[in-house]
């Protein structure tokens, strides 16, 4: 298996006036294509910051991130946007659907950005697969939390991403809905052969991924594989 995401010597320092706050310190890891990885750790340990850096939403203070074979640390904002559009999907804790667009239109955005003529058809299929075939014309405010997250998952898979980043995907949902979302996520992950990177507090969810890294105080303190994964 080839490496699809690689973080080398990542440091992230935030400045607040004259004070400096090191959020991530010397992080190194690599993720193979098709692997699922969870990032766990207490609040404030730097999980979300690491996810943002890996997905090219932010730049590290030092170090290098290679995503899908391209070094994104030195990429321009436009190039990073283009890479995200072609090869990356996102799922957020608070769903992050555009409130003014319908469920279908939300799912269509990445494909329309790619200029795909089949955007409507692909998105309709995907919404059907996540069980929202009859809610396509609804706005986010007319959907429940679980339904919104399903739309978000459909959107994340619409551009058949190579890597999917998920930030606490079940954090805002009840146990039952959370479980159905988890299974949907893994089901699509396997069907599409997508690499999955999840930030979570939920150790049960983390246990379902192939690999787990633990952060504490901005440092990577544990990198372990679950039983089924070959070391």
């Amino acid at each position, binding site marked *: 298996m080839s490496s699809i995401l690689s973080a080398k010597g990542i440091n992230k320092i935030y400045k607040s006036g004259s004070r400096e706050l090191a959020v991530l310190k010397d992080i190194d890891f690599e993720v193979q294509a098709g692997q699922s990885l969870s990032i766990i750790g207490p609040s404030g340990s730097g999980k979300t910051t690491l996810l943002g850096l890996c997905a090219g939403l932010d730049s590290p203070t030092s170090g290098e991130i290679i995503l899908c074979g391209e070094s994104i640390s030195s990429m321009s904002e*436009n190039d990073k*946007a283009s890479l995200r559009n072609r090869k990356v999907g996102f799922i957020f804790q608070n769903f992050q659907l555009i409130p003014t667009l319908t469920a279908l239109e939300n799912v269509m955005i990445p494909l329309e950005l790619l200029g795909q003529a089949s955007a409507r058809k692909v998105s309709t299929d995907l919404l059907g697969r996540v069980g929202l075939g009859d809610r396509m014309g609804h706005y986010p405010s007319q959907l429940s939390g679980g339904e919104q997250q399903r739309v978000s998952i459909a959107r994340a898979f619409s551009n058949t991403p190579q890597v999917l980043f998920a930030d606490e995907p079940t954090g805002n949902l009840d146990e039952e809905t959370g479980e159905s979302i988890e299974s949907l996520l893994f089901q699509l992950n396997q069907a599409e052969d997508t690499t999955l990177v999840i930030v979570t507090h939920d150790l049960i969810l983390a246990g379902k991924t192939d690999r787990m890294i633990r952060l504490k105080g901005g440092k990577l303190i544990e990198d372990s594989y679950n039983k089924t994964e070959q070391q």
Partner: protein
Amino acid sequence: MGQFAFLAKTALRDSRKNRGKLFMFMSSIVLGIMALVAINSFNYNLVKDIDNQTKSVLGADIMVEGKKPLPAHLKVVVDSVPGQRASQMEFFSMALIDTKDSAEQETQFTRVQAVEGNFPFYGNLVTDPKDAKERYQEEGGALVDDGLMLEHALSVGDSIQLGRQRFPITGRLMNSFGSVSLGASFAPSIYIDQSRVKATELVQTGSMVEYKYFIKTPEGFDREEWDNSAVRMKPFHAEDFRVTTIEDQKRNLNRAFSFLNSFLNIIALVALLLGCIGVASSVFIYIKSKISSIAVFRCLGMKGSQAFTVYFLQIFILGFIGVLIGTALGSALQLVLPALLKDFLPYEVSLSISWRAIMEGLSIGTIVTSLFALVPLLAVRLISPLRTLRASFEDDVAPRDPLKWVAYAAIVAALYLFLWTLTDNVRTSMYFTVGLVIAFCLLYLTSTGIMWLVRKYFPTNGNFVLRQGLSNLYRPNNQTRILIISLGLGTAILTMLFTIRGLILSNVDSMDAGSQPNMVLYSIETEQKDEVAALTREMEMPVVQEVPIVTMKLAGWKGKSKAEWMQDSTRTAERWVMHREARVTYRDTLASDETLIAGDFTGAVSPGDSVLISVDKGWAESLDVWLGDELVWNVQGALITTYISSIREIEFRSMRTRFFVLFPNGVLEAAPQFHVLVTKTPNNEVMAKYRRAVVKAFPNISVVDLGSILTTLTDILTKISYIIKFMAGFSILTGLIVLISSLLLSKYQRIRESVLLRTIGAQGSQILKINATEYAILGGISAFAGIFISTLAGYFITTVELELEFAINWWAVVIIFFFVVGLTVLIGLWNSREVLQRSPLEVLRREVG
């Protein structure tokens, strides 16, 4: 192309649930453009009509006019022009009118036009009966103004007396012809044949008569070339004759209306600017509410420029729709304006669509809307996708985005260019632009200062509500800067309009007819003056002023003759002061309406001494002379050398005869002169009796009833002030809409906080008080800063530009202050009502979700 279609589609989709928010944005543009198009349409139609009607106003192709009959050497030049000719003597005189029910005669101040030849060549005298205009000269009759005939119940066939001559009335004159001066409104016209003037004995030495010679040139004759020949025109100027061609007349008329034009343009522009402030503030607040959506778009791979395009298209399309609606409404409103202004204008203003005004409205509107929206829109490019993960992430809008400064520069440049296009005045445009930039900077600094002060001296103890309200001023998502700038600029422009409008109107009011002398007697000969004064006192009326007048011309100054100065290209003196016939008086004291501002006044000179005169400050500045300078006068052929020993300032609001040049006693007593007497009649009955007595005993004397002139003047000024109020009303309305829309839009800033407070148990009254505190402080600071800026600008405009006395109307200031604060608090509380009436979740879903 495919990408653009997607972006356009996204723009349309995204706007769906925001159209309510964007309505306020559009309303600002609609009002601003409506005012601009309506006013400009009216202006362009006015100019077009002036152009079309000039021929019939002048009545001929060329007119030569002066205050004496054309000398022989000039007549030769005039006669060399091919074509038909006619002439006219024009003077003011009292007419005696027989009354139907008493033996006494009534009197009326009139403008006598004594015509020789078939004048006018263009345009028509409208008479009743129609053929009266062809008969009155031959029959020795008169055409009499219809209004005058109605007032005195005269009929065709009755007679009217001018001086010693009685004229049968051949016809009613139904139109005022050939004059756009206000003088035409004061004195009704009477047309007679010029050969009858002598018999009236009204024209004597010192009489003020205007001699006009008209030529209708054949087609192909180059009037401009004839008029522009300096060699040919020089002798006319030397004899104080003025030559006017149709082309000159067009220019003069356009200039005469340029003030009205500029005023209307400025008002339109103010309305547009207020609209622009509305655009900028509403787009700013709108974009803030869209930040999370933009972050998601960016996260999904949309480039900064693409996100910018999505929102730019939204704003541009809505703005353009606003501009279209504004243009349509403005064109429709234009139908109202001519009806409103028709009494004031000497022309029928046509009701045609002005394509130029429409194109200007569309282009200016689209450009300024886009530019003003650009500054807040540029920030869209820099919104980080990281916001999807961290809602509080603040570091995404680069403070030094160079494009933002380019946008600011483009706004300033565009403002200047539009102002220049509209006012055609480089200086006014520059003052206005610089003033706006300074006002913007002052408000920006004020808002920054307030945030810094509140943060630094924040009360750590004390009332929770007060602390919450105060902290809203500087916390993230605060609206301090945007509201202080938009409310402050809006208040400043509104207050300035009120101040200047008030100052112009109060200057009009100060010409109070009631307390002023109301009757002036002109052309009194020296031997008549004691008798006239006696007659006045006999009727128990005061002689407010009795002055001798000697007419003279300036022959030279500062050591050079007038002819030498005329050749001098470095001359700084203004033309009017060099060529105008001076009406000079002499006395040994200053009058009560005169103030000495430099030098010493000399009341009398002995024979052989230098003649020391006193001149008006404005007159001296126009001639570029000052204390000690030598002036040489031509007094009926005799040259008198004088020196300026004092400079006076004359109170121009009093109704007395004013003299730019004042001689001491002992110089002009023997010169040919006539006298003027000013008096005040207690009522109309005495006035009529006095007028009759004077005209009967001294037919050469003209009695001018200032009372009726003042009434006419007040009428005209009332109309002008009505126009000012109406037009300013446009801007005021736009300003209010802008203030209201800025405030209404600000609700999206506070709604989350209010809902959260409500959720954790805050009482409705506490939320109201917190919001009231924030809005009251914002309203108070904005109103104060706006009033301060408008006071500075108002002082500058009134004293430097309008040359009026500046005074602060404290009542207006206090009212505006409390109005703005009240409006701000009221709308702030109105914004909170939903939070109080509905469940927190419902509010979040409706307004945010």
